[in-house]
């Protein structure tokens, strides 16, 4: 696994974008540790495509007392374990499989965690056969990511 890019926010930001992603890896891993100005459901978009109609997801989630499975908010990479303004960041890892393939839609697996709210496992699909060159992280609630939030991108090399 190779570290490709990372940022620790020095000031609040509403989006984080990874661009010019090289095509020399097999899979990508995104690791996020974030707080926000308020409750924020993080979203992931590829190559500037922010149309929900081009994405789908299925969520498995637990909040400590109940379990949930939903398919709403197709670009979201969390459900119960969203980012908040408290001292506990939500921690999200996203694996984007075979991101350079041009013969398949792009599948991602996300795990979102925040002990104060819940834990989520999410499978996502971007209905495009384009290679992924840009990843944008924003949120569905018009909140900003707080200073100190970290976003890191890694490339996983095939054998």
């Amino acid at each position: 696994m190779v570290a490709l890019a990372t940022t620790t926010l020095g000031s609040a930001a509403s989006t984080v974008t990874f661009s010019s992603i090289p095509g020399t890896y097999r899979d990508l891993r995104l690791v996020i540790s974030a707080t926000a100005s308020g409750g924020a459901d993080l979203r992931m978009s590829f190559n500037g495509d922010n149309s929900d109609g081009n994405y789908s997801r299925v969520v498995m989630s637990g909040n400590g007392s109940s379990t949930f499975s939903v398919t709403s908010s197709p670009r979201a990479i969390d459900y119960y374990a969203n980012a908040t303004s408290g001292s506990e960041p939500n921690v999200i890892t996203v694996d984007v499989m075979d991101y350079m393939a041009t013969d398949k839609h792009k599948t991602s697996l996300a795990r979102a965690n925040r002990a104060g709210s819940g834990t989520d496992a999410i499978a996502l699909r971007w209905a495009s056969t384009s290679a992924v060159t840009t990843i944008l992280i924003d949120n569905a609630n018009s909140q900003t990511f707080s200073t100190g939030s970290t976003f890191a991108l890694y490339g996983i090399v095939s054998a």
Partner: protein
Amino acid sequence: MAITKIAEITVGSGGAASIDFTSIPGTYTDLLVVHSIRSTQAIVSAYATLTITPTSSTYSMRGLYGTGSGAGSFTTPVNYIGELTGANATSSTFGNGQIYFPNYAGSTFKSYSTDSVGESNGSAANQSLTAGLWSTTSAITGISIVSTSGTFVQYSSATLYGVLKGSSGGVVVS
């Protein structure tokens, strides 16, 4: 490479009540523990708890589990870190799991996530996902996986990796 093995521990013939990583350097960004453990507890799926050094009792957790016949969500024990295989599971079978600690050396509270399964060829093999929090601003210098009943059998193992952030390949962040 972004991921480096820091230490690997394999339980010897006498068994062990815990697997302990100590003197963890603060030079990485995140930590990853991968474990494969079987317990002497007379049950199919056992579980383990976590002790972080410097020691404190400020843990909290929310988890999601499946048993093969049902699912549920839970919040205790607060330092639960995963399912193991117990003595009543299929022989020669060990559980597997991982624990991820982002920003473990930073000055904020430490969130972590776990994914684990107590393997067995039959019913009542549990799988769990959890979100954990160690509400301490100290850097993590030690991690112990602790048996809750019985001991870990010989050949149980855990490996500690350091993940280092960086930049290469011209990726731009904005």
